[in-house]
């Protein structure tokens, strides 16, 4: 049984070159970190706007629903539709060429780290918005007023009142995004032109080749890593108490 774990880390002893497994996990963690940061900033900002800037409940619900638009189409269609936008002869390249900003089409718009990050952010931001919005809507407005009355600036209120009170939402949203991105292989595959490895893709390839034992070992490794991340996250907040 341990042989399968040994195989998963095959040739990993030879430093300084990293073996495929380590490089794959580093790449996955890199996307995870970038996507988490971007979705957190975007998600928090949007949730803040929806909760504190929009007065009417109807407008708030309508706008929140608009955030789910990426889920209205199938994964495949969504992926394919990036090509006319980002492709070599796509809309963005055409516009930039016509404006004279560039003279050669930008190749890195599609099938690159950029496009993978973009697509992951595109579909995962809503998982950040909803829990944060949920936490924010429970914040007692009188606390915000009290902060203003006590002379806090907008940023101080945000940092000392709103963010601590939205912590549960931020943690739950982070768990959603991190688990999805760590396990993702479809988006990374399609948007990376199948040339960017991910932990999930490794498992998928091994299963495709009927190598179930090593796939199982890889799955356990991935599970352990994700659990460690989540364990760290819930150190920051007692989710059970917050809910």
């Amino acid at each position, binding site marked *: 049984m341990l042989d399968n774990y040994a195989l998963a880390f095959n040739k990993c002893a030879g430093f300084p070159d990293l073996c495929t497994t380590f490089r794959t996990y580093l790449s996955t963690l890199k996307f995870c970190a970038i996507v988490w940061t971007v979705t957190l900033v975007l998600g928090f900002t949007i949730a803040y706007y929806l909760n504190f800037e929009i007065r009417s409940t109807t407008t708030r619900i309508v706008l929140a629903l608009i955030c789910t638009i990426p889920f209205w189409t*199938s994964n*495949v*269609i969504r992926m*394919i539709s990036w*090509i*006319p936008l980002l*492709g*070599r*002869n*796509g809309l963005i390249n055409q516009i930039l060429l016509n404006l004279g900003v560039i003279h050669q089409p930008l*190749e890195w718009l*599609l*099938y690159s780290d950029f496009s993978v990050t973009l697509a992951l952010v595109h579909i995962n931001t809503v998982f950040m918005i909803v829990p944060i919005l949920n936490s924010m809507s429970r914040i007692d407005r009188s606390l915000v007023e009290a902060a203003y009355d006590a002379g806090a600036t907008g940023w101080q209120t945000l940092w000392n009142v709103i963010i601590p009170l939205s912590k549960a939402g931020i943690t739950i949203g982070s768990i959603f995004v991190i688990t999805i991105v760590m396990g993702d292989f479809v988006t990374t595959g*399609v948007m990376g*032109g*199948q*040339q960017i490895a991910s932990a999930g893709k490794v498992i998928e*390839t091994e*299963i*495709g*080749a*009927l190598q179930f034992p090593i796939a199982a070992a890889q799955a356990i490794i991935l599970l352990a890593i994700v659990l460690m991340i989540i364990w760290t996250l819930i150190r920051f907040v007692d989710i059970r108490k917050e809910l």
Partner: protein
Amino acid sequence: MKDTKTRGISRRSVLKGTAAFAGLAAGSGAITGFPAILAAEPITLRYLSTATNQSPAIADQAFKDLGIKIEYVSVETDEVTKRIVTQPDSFDLVDTEYFSLKNLVPSGNLMGMDAKKIKLVDKLATVIAKGEIDGKKIGDQGTAPHKVCYLEGQHSKNFAKEPTEWLTLIPTTYNADTLGIRPDLIGRPIDSWAELLNPQFKGKASILNIPSIGIMDAAMVNEALGKVKYGDKGNMTKAEIDTTIATLIDAKKAGQFRAFWSDFNESVNLMASGETVIQSMWSPAVTAVRLKGIACTFQPLKEGYRAWASGFALPKTLKDKQLDAAYEFVNWFLSGWAGAYLNRQGYYSAVLDTAKANMEGYEWDYWMEGSPPRRTSRVRTAACSRRPARFVTAAPTPSAWAPWRAGTRSWTKMRTWFRSGTSSSPPDGRNHNLCTPRSHAPGRFRQASPAARRRGPPAALLAGGAACPRFSGLLRPAAACHACR
């Protein structure tokens, strides 16, 4: 979930809605068109295969002729193998490829097909059954179908060396794949697999990402580059594997590939959008690109093709009525209608005689003999799927994974044919007119009425799923529009 509850939507209504959607999805996809007759419990066969091999028209016709309902289960190539090995009860009939058999047969989950119950067993294409054409032996590398055609016994896990009465698969179709190119963007002749890794096409090449198939394309490239001389591409030594993979890794790191594709639609999109100009390709995909009015060639190469063949197998648990129905369906499949249908997609059906009897003379001449289209100028749009007759009847036809050598007379003829075929039939504006009604009324064409058939190959081509293999389920109408745009 909380939200839905507070808005007073009961679990039941949600379930109903889901069921309705599921019904809609199923109804718009593979299993449409059954007449609303309630036969006395018609037998349903769950037909597992890749979408490439599934076509609503065939299911409709089978129901009309036999009263057997075909319920398509469409998954990807590797998934077919995985299902047979891990979930042998999840299907009643499987259409898989010969190259998978070395994984499938040792599992013992498939039963040998009884030759005595297959009426046309003697008529099966000799290229599959014997590995020869008109008595001439053909290339033998890889899992050539004739090597894995027979089992020692019905439930044996060993292949028989000599013909027995137990067949592993009853062949359905076969074909050969090569590189597809965009002649307008390349602007010079391409004649070798080595061109796939030519730095000239850096960032504009692609290779098939179904590993078991793509590795063969990579092997063709490696041999063409002179890096490896393989003993048998279908059974590489460790050193050969290492060199092949090293070449691929180097090319990938150098940025040779734009993307890898594993799905029919992806290959069409890559080529049509100009993301790639040279890539592994399947012939119906080339046709799909040309139908958009974009120049694309299914390029013959001097090193030869990579061939494949697929066929039916039954799970060993199948019995009684279901088993009889499965044999009945297989016999029907070989009896001509389905073969003719597949020939019109650009494939070769396993029993050519019966297929020929079900095709019009001009259809046979066009699709199988490679003669110029006779009926209308419209048929030219599919010219790149046209095959030279010699490929089938006289040339050393490839067996699975076995490239056939260039330099024979028939090869020269073939190449000439392809050249004339491509240059004489530029896609023109009429394509668009041809496609418009089809995308709006796919149902009509799916039935392949005599009128539709008379339109010639392109009509039949889009008539079913096989020409656009991965357009399944809900995707079909949108994808059809896309393909015709």
